[in-house]
């Protein structure tokens, strides 16, 4: 491969992973925008979504299926329908049971609670990995990473070119881009979206205008969780390995993306996600893989210290 081909290849990998990170980051940024909570459990919710997807493939008996057959397409569609419902519902439930009671409490209380939820989710992922599924001959060592079946073909769409652009990359773009446009339309144009923006701006005033604040916040959790669910399906099909501790890393990447773009800003989250995806890919290629995480964390600290409002965020004063 020539230098420019390597560059192009990393560009494709970074872009695809970046779009997945962006979907997770959207969930962070929506929740933060509305109740100023860093939803620490979001990454682990994403991880549980991957396990839900794996269970669906298990039920359909698709562990050895050939990619591209009608069965795999059906499975993909089913996962894109069910996993977001599962993740969104779970996120809504957690808000209802844990965070809602802490709204009037100190700011750190919901954050600590979210860390607790994250640990509970991680443990559920660990146990879920040990659930015996007859279709998987992967052993039952719960802590080991699990293989996710190849549902989309890995064949290169560019023919003989050494740069690989596969059906998986197409799938990532086809799923994520319309979803982002739909979300933007929803938040900007619909009545429900208007209510969300109003609650984000001033909760008390929104309440006085007759907006059911708690219900709107609950719906935000639902939508953010559903986005994480879509992200987990796309991620699992794209990368083919899932692991119960991956939620932590994915969550940090996505949170960094959200902060980099400007937390609370939807286009910012997408921009940040793509930047982080590209930065990871290029660091893997041109520096060393083992320093990639350090790079992401360094970006996170530097952005928080020098430009906490991010690239596209508005410089909001802290409410006293």
């Amino acid at each position, binding site marked *: 491969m020539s230098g420019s081909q390597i560059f192009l290849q990393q560009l494709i990998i970074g872009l695809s992973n970046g779009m997945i990170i962006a979907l997770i980051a959207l969930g962070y940024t929506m929740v933060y925008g509305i109740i100023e909570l860093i939803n620490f459990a979001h990454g682990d919710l994403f991880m549980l979504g991957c396990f839900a997807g794996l269970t669906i493939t298990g039920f359909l008996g698709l562990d050895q299926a050939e990619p591209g057959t009608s069965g795999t397409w059906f499975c993909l569609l089913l996962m894109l329908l069910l996993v977001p419902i599962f993740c969104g519902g779970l996120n809504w439930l957690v808000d209802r049971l844990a965070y809602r009671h802490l709204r009037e409490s100190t700011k750190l209380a919901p954050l600590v*609670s979210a*860390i*607790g939820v*994250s640990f509970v989710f991680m*443990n559920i992922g*660990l146990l879920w990995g040990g659930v015996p599924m007859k279709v998987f001959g992967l052993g039952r060592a719960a802590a080991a990473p699990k293989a996710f079946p190849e549902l989309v073909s890995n064949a290169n769409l560019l023919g003989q070119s050494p740069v690989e652009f596969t059906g998986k990359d197409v799938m990532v773009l086809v799923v994520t881009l319309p979803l982002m446009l739909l979300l933007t339309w929803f938040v900007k144009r619909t009545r429900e979206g208007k209510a969300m923006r109003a609650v984000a701006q001033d909760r008390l005033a929104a309440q*006085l205008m007759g907006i059911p604040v708690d219900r709107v916040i609950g719906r935000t959790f639902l939508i953010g969780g559903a986005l994480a669910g879509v992200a987990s399906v796309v991620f699992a099909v794209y990368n083919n390995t899932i692991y119960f501790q991956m939620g932590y890393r994915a969550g940090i990447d996505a949170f960094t993306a959200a902060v980099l773009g400007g937390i609370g800003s939807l286009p910012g989250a997408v921009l940040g996600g793509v930047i982080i995806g590209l930065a990871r890919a290029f660091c893997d290629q041109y520096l060393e893989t*083992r*320093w990639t995480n350090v790079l992401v964390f360094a970006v996170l600290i530097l952005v928080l*210290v020098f430009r906490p409002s991010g690239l596209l965020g508005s410089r909001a004063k802290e409410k006293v």
Partner: protein
Amino acid sequence: MAARPKIPFHWSFLLVAALIPLVELILPGEHHIGDLLRPIFIMALLGLGLNILTGFTGILNLGVAAFMAVGAYSYAILTCDIYPFRLGFWCATLVTVLVGLAVGFFLGLPTIRLRGDYLAIVTLAFGEIVEDVLKNLDSITKGTEGINPLPAPSVFGYQFRPETYQPWYYLFLGFLALVVLINRNLHRSRIGRAWISIREDELASSCMGINPMKAKLLAFALGAAQCSLAGALWASYLGSSGEPGNYDFQVSIIALCMVIVGGMGNIGGVLLGALVITGFNSIVLETLTDFLKAHQLISSSNVFTAPGNWKYMLYGLALILMMRFRPEGLLPSRQLKAELHHQEPPVPPAS
């Protein structure tokens, strides 16, 4: 209101702890409770370091394990034979505490003015960076092997040996008592009152002439110094720096659990939290696992039966339930309890 006990919990805790090895010597038979308590003292030191930040000052720190790692690795580098320093126990511990102080100060310097949740994320990222750097700089830190072996400490001419645990026990207990004393005095001094007023209301305390940045920075440095002391003792206990993975995010969360479950801002509460959380981890879970194994109730093919696989669930539930029902902890400080249960007139709900 119930009558307050004459002796505060932290002193009675230390007193009982001091008696345990003596009782074990008197009683016939083999005992090893004291042996198991040593890691609890070290974790209690870590918890007390975090308590200065989270309990007194109200700064959430999610990276105390990194300060502990800094302590363990500097102690290891200062004492191990393969490095040129080869300091004695006291000297190395003192230098390690100073290193921790400096690391806390220089991490706090640019980040301390950030708002609470952002600062928490910065400390988390710092913890991850330290772990990765220790892993990757293998020419200095020996990567995942850790620096070892470290010479056993020699205190006032007495050479410690791994097979007798009592000297270690009293060494760690002595450090714990010293730190408890220091923290109690800090808590009651001018700076301690400044920390608490910042926790209660930063704006109001700055109006009263407290410089919040200065006070927070001091809390950061002192908390980091205590955590690195815990790291140094941990390294001397292991005889190794331990591998970088020993100081990961989960350790930071365990320390946070100790402070929150025990009672934020209360020294006795943190000691109780360390006893409950670490004791649960290293004594209850282990014993239960051994018991189940002995009776063949654990099968390796079923992950649900191993108690260790439920550990994070319990830590997580502890955090969630404490925040929901008893945010002041099991053994609360009176001040925090009063604050958290202060009833404000409720805002009428919409519609």
